[in-house]
């Protein structure tokens, strides 16, 4: 059992989606995350183990290398593609309740900002980390975050911004969320942000990279 889970983790880290995928070249022709995940579930390995020892391990490894500047956005995107191929097989088990998420994470790019690359990277790493991700998209108002929180009250929140014009909107959203959901963990991220800015606007944490967001939230809800 452990061998196939290790291979799933390796395929995700390396961005090996399925047997047909030519990437990465040295794994050409071999089964990828898609086939291996299906095989693992056919072998009746607990979907929670497939998640924890396969997907989470693979995404953690690549996410950590990304935060150390050892791999870059394309590597993370390929890994996420492989992770999503695995996740497609796990989805029915989440729906039936046989598999459990580690938590729910609501994320969006803040009002006025249309940039989504950073937000998408965080979504992928969180999903690969075993979290249910509710992606509200770009240009998200405080009201939309509140609506999502009312529907999923025990969630953590992630706010993304690329522009100095829109990073100021983060504070309004943090204030609105705190007023109604004082216990909610709020993390912020984006190129112009700093730890100090995050602290001053009342967020719980600044995540310099996607893995930082995941690590913080895993520790915070543990």
């Amino acid at each position, binding site marked *: 059992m452990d061998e196939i889970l290790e291979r799933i983790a390796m395929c995700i880290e390396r961005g090996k989606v399925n047997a047909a995928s030519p990437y990465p070249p040295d794994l050409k022709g071999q089964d990828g995350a898609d086939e291996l995940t299906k095989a693992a579930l056919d072998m009746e390995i607990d979907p929670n183990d497939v998640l924890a020892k396969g997907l989470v391990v693979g995404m953690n490894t690549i996410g950590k290398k990304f935060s150390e*500047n*050892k*791999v*870059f*956005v*394309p*590597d993370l*995107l*390929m890994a996420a593609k492989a992770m999503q191929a695995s996740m497609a097989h796990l989805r029915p088990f989440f729906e039936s309740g046989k598999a459990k998420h580690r938590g729910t994470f609501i994320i969006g790019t803040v*009002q*006025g*900002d*249309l*940039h*989504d*690359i950073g937000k998408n990277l965080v979504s992928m790493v969180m999903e690969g980390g075993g979290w249910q991700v509710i992606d509200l998209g*770009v*240009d998200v108002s405080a009201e939309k975050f509140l609506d999502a929180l009312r529907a999923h009250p025990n969630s953590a929140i992630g706010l993304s911004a690329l*522009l*100095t*014009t*829109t*990073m*100021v*909107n983060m*504070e309004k959203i943090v204030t609105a969320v705190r007023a109604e959901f004082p216990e909610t963990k709020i993390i912020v991220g984006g*190129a*112009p942000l*700093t730890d*100090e*800015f995050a602290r*001053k*606007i009342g967020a719980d944490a600044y995540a310099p990279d996607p893995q930082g967001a995941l690590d913080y939230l895993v520790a915070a809800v543990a």
Partner: protein
Amino acid sequence: MKSIVGAVRERKLLVSDGGWGTFLVAAGLGAGECPELWNVEHPDVVRNIAASYAEAGADIVMTNSFGGTRITLEPYGLASRAAELNEAAARLSREAVGERALVLASVGPTGKILMMGDVSEDQLFEAFAEQAIALERGGADACSVETMTALDEAGIAARAVKENTGLELVCSFTFSMKTDTGYRTMMGVSVAEMAQAMLAEGADVLGVNCSLGPAEMVEVVRELRAAAPEVPILVHPNAGMPQRKDDGSVWYPETPEGMASQVSDLVKAGASIVGGCCGTGPKHIQAIAAVVQRLREGQ
């Protein structure tokens, strides 16, 4: 039409302009508004930005067209107005600076990632071509494919400029990640890889802009000079990282004097054209111009 390469040959060092986005915000651009729409709705504000930079001593002034492809205009419902908004951008800068400065038209990334299938190569090429043609029609002297992080997108933008216009081409990348083997873009492109690829596309000038402050830019410029010994190098550092004021607004910590104190090191590292990116304004450019003037006289 005037040439940046010619001007560098003649004057050794040039001053370019500072940030446009932060300037527009100071002039009232709200979050969620399309900056390029101001080219037709608030032309006086846009003209005033260009004029302020020329006044401050910039030899090169850019245009309000960073997000001007139909792809970036689409979410605002303005895709069909791409040609109009870009032509206006170049015309306003030209009107503001006359023949006092060169007009370097800004072409930024689309925010789409080719390898994810967000957009096709043809769609990117068409969008950049449409923008470049309009910028030339509006009176630009040159075009800067800037703030790029991916070789494929930048290469397509460069080809779109070269194949559809007679504009001189600046290719400027954003290197935000420091690694054991030098700086890289978020897409993993090293300084040497960028230089080689963009020179192959016919870049007349190479550049580095955004994300880093002036002190870190010295290192990036040094790497770029080593990779490209012959071409002029443009450098546009940010004024540091934005900080929050007590009223909730944002300011950039690097002062005009602080920026100016790095100019000599940037030039020693190999820069030929020095300006600024986010958070820099006319005061920064004035301070940079004063140092450049002294360096020119020293030569």
